[in-house]
């Protein structure tokens, strides 16, 4: 029995090959650079530090890396920052999604006066310089009614979450809006004719199909919260054992000349970001569709 063979592909012309090569070189330069960026951090940790005991000498790079990361966790300040980072990012992600899903839905489906203005306001956290955003938050809490709770929020842990949320929710809302835009409204219309209220059509028909966008939005919200620095520094401060998160740890460690610790914390943050990205992609998130982040397209 003859084996089925692949049909022959048309031969690409020299011009086509040259075109693809140029694209690959230009794009590849950047991608390789990004990969080198991460590898350099790990390589720095692997090559810095004292020699291990004799039996472990061949494993010196691994020893050095583990030693640097262990050193990070030995510091109670950084342990506190690590816990606050994880907790604040989770709270921020949940709050961001609570806002992003309805806002994305309204911008995608509803036509109301001032819709363009709402859309533009949503861009503020995305386009505003981070420090300016922090100062704006600081100033906002000098005015009524915000100043009533200023003492409980500004330079306290809630400020960390609020600063992260301000930026993360805008990104999440943008992603949810694009996600809802990509789902045809006809299915909701049919659901209405079948007896649904608008809310029931939203919950039963639209939302289940928006799961990839929800996972993507939550992932991006988490990643933005993790990387938040400027507004945090201004609005929450960088007080050790209080409002310090990992991004401020990197800054604080650098400012006292402890480059090795700063790099170790950076590697830790990269690992945390990659872990969430991998979890999101394996649970149905679609990074390519709404953000260009990743490459798989979810089946619809």
């Amino acid at each position, binding site marked *: 029995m003859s084996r089925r063979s692949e049909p022959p592909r048309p031969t690409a012309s020299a011009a086509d090959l040259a075109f693809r090569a140029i694209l690959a070189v230009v794009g590849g330069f950047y991608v390789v650079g990004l990969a080198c960026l991460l590898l350099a951090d790990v390589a720095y940790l692997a090559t810095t530090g004292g020699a291990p005991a004799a039996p472990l000498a061949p494993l010196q790079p691994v020893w050095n890396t583990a030693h640097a990361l262990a050193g990070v966790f030995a510091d109670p300040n950084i342990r506190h920052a690590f816990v606050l980072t994880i907790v604040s990012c989770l709270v921020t992600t949940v709050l961001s999604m609570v806002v992003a899903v309805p806002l994305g839905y309204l911008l995608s489906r509803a036509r109301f006066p001032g819709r363009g203005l709402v859309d533009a306001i949503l861009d503020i956290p995305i386009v505003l310089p981070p420090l300016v955003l922090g100062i704006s938050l600081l100033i906002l809490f000098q005015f009524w009614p915000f100043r009533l709770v200023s003492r409980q929020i500004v330079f306290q842990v809630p400020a960390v979450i609020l600063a992260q949320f301000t930026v993360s929710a805008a990104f999440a809302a943008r992603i949810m809006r694009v996600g809802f835009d990509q789902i045809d409204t*006809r*299915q909701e219309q049919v659901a209405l004719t079948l007896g649904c209220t608008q809310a029931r059509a939203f919950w039963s*028909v639209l939302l289940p199909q928006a799961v990839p966008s929800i996972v993507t939005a939550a992932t991006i919200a988490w990643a933005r919260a993790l990387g938040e620095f400027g507004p945090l520094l201004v609005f929450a401060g960088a007080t050790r054992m209080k409002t310090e998160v990992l991004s401020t740890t990197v800054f604080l460690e650098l400012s006292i000349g402890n480059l090795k610790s700063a790099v170790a914390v950076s590697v830790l943050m990269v690992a945390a970001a990659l872990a969430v990205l991998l979890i999101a992609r394996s649970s149905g998130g679609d990074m390519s569709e709404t953000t260009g982040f990743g490459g798989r397209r979810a089946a619809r």
Partner: protein
Amino acid sequence: MIAVTGLCVKSGDFELRDLTLEVPPGRYAVLMGRTGSGKSTLLEALCGLRPVHAGSIVLGGRDVTRLPPAHRGIGYVPQDRALFSHMTVRRQLEFALAVRGRAAAAAGRVAELTDLLDLGPLLDRLPAGLSGGEAQRVTLGRALAAEPAVLLLDEPLSALDDESWASACDVLTRVQRTTRVTVLHVTHRHEESRRLADVAIELHAGRLTATIPRSPQEALPR
């Protein structure tokens, strides 16, 4: 029955003006018109998916002009079918009863629709795995599940090949004869009108230009 009187619907620059039509109860009406003539706009207005600027719509003996789509007692089959892509065929058939709080009756109704539309092998499949003809039957079943007084079909056969088209016509005829539902079927193909219509209506440039009532006996043999 379907009774539309002096209906005016605006959609951007396009306007349907002063439309009046009547489809007697239990009849199969086919509304013909060229692409862009406003057939789908009219159907969407009947469904309650487009605001009506003037006139009235009576479906199954009730004035539904100001009622939301959920309370109009209609089954709607859009041109692109719009099957719920995350639901199995069984859940699509149960959907209309579930949202009306009649989940207990769903199993029996699904069995009836399965027999009527030959959906047995499809019940546990998702829409993505269905052929054009299968998807068309599922869409019909979903629309009929809550036993609507009126069935509104927007070019339901447009995506089918000739063989599937003929068999889908037979399905539509069988369904209408079995359920006695009043049907308004929108199409641009005269062939469908000749084959299916008890009442043939033509829509041209936003106005009804001809209404040709025909008795079922005059229609082609089924």
